[in-house]
């Protein structure tokens, strides 16, 4: 199994390491490749969009053709995951911050996201979170977005107060928090197995 991590900007290395550990735990042989150029995502079996700045990552993936490759991979039913900024990019609709900055989205998850939903960096937090299919998970939220509306095909996996913070639509998984920052690989393992279940 070959997993691509979109590596234009953000916490790419953390996802590479978490995915490698998850593959090992699942006893799946495979490789994890971080990429800043087109040509890699299209030859992979799964792709992850990391955390970072959504405005920056959006500009770079759309100008370099990586965005089209992600769309094609998703259409082919391969697992696609986005964390934090990655969740914003996967979503169909953004809030006024997304619109104001003309951030282009991939539209793979029928959801509306709110950027910086919990506030600025000083309001960033970690909390034990109940995640469907996974269990209790120490979730790290950093200037995190949240989902405020979802379409009928979207399965809600975790909520915090009135916000949805994890959701899945068939092979597409979006998280407002950062499973790659902790040593717990259960969410990455869940993600890698999405392809099997469909």
């Amino acid at each position, binding site marked *: 199994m070959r997993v691509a991590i979109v590596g234009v900007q*953000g916490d790419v290395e953390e996802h590479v390491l978490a995915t490698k550990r998850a593959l090992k735990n699942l006893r799946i042989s495979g490789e994890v490749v971080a990429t800043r150029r087109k040509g890699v995502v299209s030859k992979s079996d799964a792709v992850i969009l990391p955390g970072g*700045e959504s405005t920056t990552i959006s500009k770079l993936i759309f100008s370099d053709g990586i965005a089209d490759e992600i769309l094609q991979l998703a259409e082919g039913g391969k697992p696609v995951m986005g964390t934090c900024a990655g969740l914003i990019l996967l979503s169909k609709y953004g809030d006024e911050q997304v619109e104001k*900055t003309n951030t282009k989205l991939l539209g793979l998850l029928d959801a509306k996201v709110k*950027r910086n939903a919990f506030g600025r960096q*000083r309001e*960033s*937090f970690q909390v034990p979170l109940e995640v469907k299919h996974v269990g209790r998970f120490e979730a790290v939220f950093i200037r995190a977005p949240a989902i405020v509306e979802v379409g009928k095909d979207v399965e809600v996996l975790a909520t*915090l107060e009135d916000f949805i913070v994890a959701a899945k639509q068939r092979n597409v998984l979006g998280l407002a928090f950062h499973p790659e*920052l902790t040593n717990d690989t259960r969410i990455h393992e869940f993600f890698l197995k999405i392809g099997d279940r469909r």
Partner: protein
Amino acid sequence: MKINLEKLKFGTELIKRGFAKMQKGGVIMDVTNVEQAIIAEEAGAVAVMALHKVPADIRATGGVARMADPKKIQEIIDAVTIPVMAKCRIGHIAEARALEALGVDMIDESEVLTPADVFFHIDKRKFVVPFVCGARSLGEAVRRIWEGAAMIRTKGEAGTGNIVEAVKHMRLINRAIFELQRMDEEKIYITAENYAYRYAELASKVREEMGLGEVSRNDVVFEEYTLGEIITGIYEILLEIRELGRLPVVNFAAGGVATPADAALMMQLGADGVFVGSGIFKSSNPPEYAKAIVEAVQHYDEPEVIAEVSKGLGEAMKGLDIFKLSEEERLQTRGV
């Protein structure tokens, strides 16, 4: 799920270092007003550093350089969606607290401003907001990390448009990590003692004047920490660096980046990202310069892209010859 407020944790090391990790592969740009901040955001900056004056102008004006006017910082916070950072003076806890209260996303405890304390930096662990600090060597970097910095940047020589010092500092840190990886625990402990001694300088100076004996390991030398505790803390960080083969926090390049090729050079030397101070808004075409530097950081290992984005950019900032600067004019010697 209802939030159980007692289970919510803020300002942990994981959250602070995590914030810095989200900046990797990005360009952080110095801006002095809303218009510049918007240009930076549109060009793809991952964050902006809100300043009263860019370092080149701080240099030209002289006098005491302080924290920027909070009104100006607030305007920039309100104008952009990306994180906003701001600088406080080295050791100036009150400026740092004011910036934290303002909602700044990261504080740069910076040698570019006039230091407020010649003995100590801020004990950054006591803050919820993360800090970035400059370093010229592994010793400086490790001391700042021990104090709780979530991000390190090379000091370089800010406001000169001259990359030579940033390269020097990155090379010195890389070489020291190389040496560390070939050292046993005993030698590393000796290095930790050397690095930690800086914290004992105040106590040592006073004791010497008073005719007292040397500072001992059990003496409290900085905040509530004894010299022995500091040595142990630094020793543990050094072991972690040996294990990782790199700093345990994000390491950016700063202090003299003026062109796309400068930015690419620093990335090739192992920087996780780049701060551009005067380089963008002292150039003849800031929006194009900003975009070109963002592209150059992303494609640092693709020479054809560096060539392409560097075409017809106009004048880079004028720049200064480091060797013509006197010791007092060098900002990098502040805060060791």
